[in-house]
C-alpha cells in the first residue's frame, strides 16, 4: 500500500546508541522536536532537528503504527531517509509500565528533569497504544 499523495515511501531508521531499534519503510513519521511537533512525509526537505524526550510515531508502508519513546536526540531527513537518533530509544512493546513508573518516581526524587521526561515519554507511549 503506497501512501496517498506520493509514490514514494520513507526509509526510516530508529537508532539507539547501542542498537538499531526499528528500521523499515514508512509513509509518515511524527516526532516531537525542540520547535514543536513535526510530521515527515515523503519528499520532505533535508532537515536536521533536535528531539525532545517524547513519543515518535511511525506509520509504516503497510498502514501499521509503530510507537517508540525517545530521549533527547535528533532527527535527520534527507533524500527520503529519516534517521531518528536518541541514546534512549524504546519501542512500546519493550516498555514495562511498572518499570517506567518506578523510573519516573526515582527521577522525580532525584530532581533529574531529563530523566523524568524520558520516563513520562515511556508512559505516554503505553497510554496511546
Amino acid at each position, binding site marked *: 500500500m503506497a501512501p496517498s499523495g506520493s509514490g514514494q515511501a520513507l526509509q526510516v531508521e530508529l537508532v539507539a*546508541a547501542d542498537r538499531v531499534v526499528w528500521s523499515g519503510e514508512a509513509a509518515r513519521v511524527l516526532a516531537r522536536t525542540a520547535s514543536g511537533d513535526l510530521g515527515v512525509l515523503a519528499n520532505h526537505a533535508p532537515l536536521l532537528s*533536535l528531539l525532545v524526550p517524547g513519543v515518535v510515531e511511525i506509520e509504516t508502508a503497510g498502514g501499521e503504527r509503530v510507537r517508540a519513546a525517545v530521549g533527547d536526540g535528533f532527527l535527520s531527513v534527507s533524500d527520503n531517509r529519516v534517521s531518528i537518533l536518541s541514546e534512549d530509544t524504546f519501542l512500546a512493546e519493550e516498555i514495562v509500565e511498572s518499570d517506567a513508573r518506578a523510573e519516573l518516581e526515582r527521577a522525580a526524587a532525584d530532581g533529574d528533569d531529563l530523566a523524568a521526561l524520558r520516563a513520562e515519554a515511556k508512559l505516554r507511549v503505553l497510554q496511546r497504544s
Partner: protein
Amino acid sequence: MAASVRELRAKIRSTQATKKITRAMELIAASRIIKAQQHAAAAAPYARELTRAVSAVATFSNVDHPLTTEKENPTRAAVLVITSDRGLAGSYSSSVLKETERLAEKLRSEGKEIDFYLAGRKSVAYFKFRDLDHVTSWTGFSDKPQYEDARTIGEVLVEAFAEGEDVESGASTDVEVRPVDELHIVFTRFKSMLTQEPDVIRLLPLEVVEGTEAPEDHELLPLYEFEPSASEVLDALLPKYVNSRIYYCLLQAAASELAARQKAMKSATDNAQDLIEKYTRTANQARQAGITQEISEIVGGANALADATAGQE
C-alpha cells in the same frame, strides 16, 4: 623413592586442575569476544549517523563551538586511561599504562599539566601503587561496557573541558573537575584476534572528520535545514558525539581485553599441558627406577640366601 612419585602425582593433579581453569577462562573469553564484536557492530549505525550529522552541521555552518576550538596556550590536559578490571590478560593493561607514560611525558614536555581519569581497576591499582594522583575513576564494566558507562564518563569529561573554555556545559556531575584544555584517550585498538595495539586519540578539541565511521568522501551531504538553529543543533550533538566516541573506545578496549585474555589463557593451558607431560615422564621414570631397585634388592637378597645355603652344604 616412593615419596617422590607421590609428590609428582600431586603436582600433576594440581596442574591438571589449573589447566581446567585456564581452559575454561580461554573458552569464556573466546565466546565473549564474539559478543563484544556484536556490540561494536550494533553501535556502528548510531556512530555513523551521528558523525554524518556533526559533519553536516560543521560543514554548512560557520559556527564556532567551544568543543571544536583549539586553545592558543593549552596548559592542562585530561587523559582518560582505559584498562581492564581484572588481570590474567597478558600484557594488556601494562601496555596501555606504558603508552600512558609515554603520552604523559610528551604532554609534560609541551608544558602541560595532566589530569588523569581512569577506567578499569588495573589502572587505579597502578596509580595507587605509585602514589600518583588521579581525578576520578570508573570500574566494573571493562569487559562489557554499556552505553550508560560511556555517558557517565563523557559527562564528566565534557564538563571539565567546558570549564576550561568558560562555558556552561549543561551537564552537572558530582565529580570535582579541574578545567582542562584538551582531552586524550589511551585505549587498546582491536585490530584482529591476534593483534591489539595500545593507541592514543585526542578527543577534544574535536576533529570531526577523524575516526573510522567518517562518511565516504564521495558522499555529498545534503543542504540541511537546521532546527531550531545550527548552533543549537551543534550544541546538542557534540556532547553526544563525545559520548559515542568514548563508547567506541570502551568497546574496542573490551574486545582487546578479551582477546588478550584468551591468548594468555591459551598459552597458560598449553604450558600446563607441557608441565603435566614433563611431570608424568619424571613420575614414570621414578616409578620404573623404584621397581628396578626393588627387583635388584630381591635378586640380591635371593642370591645372598642361595650363597649362604650353598656354603652350609
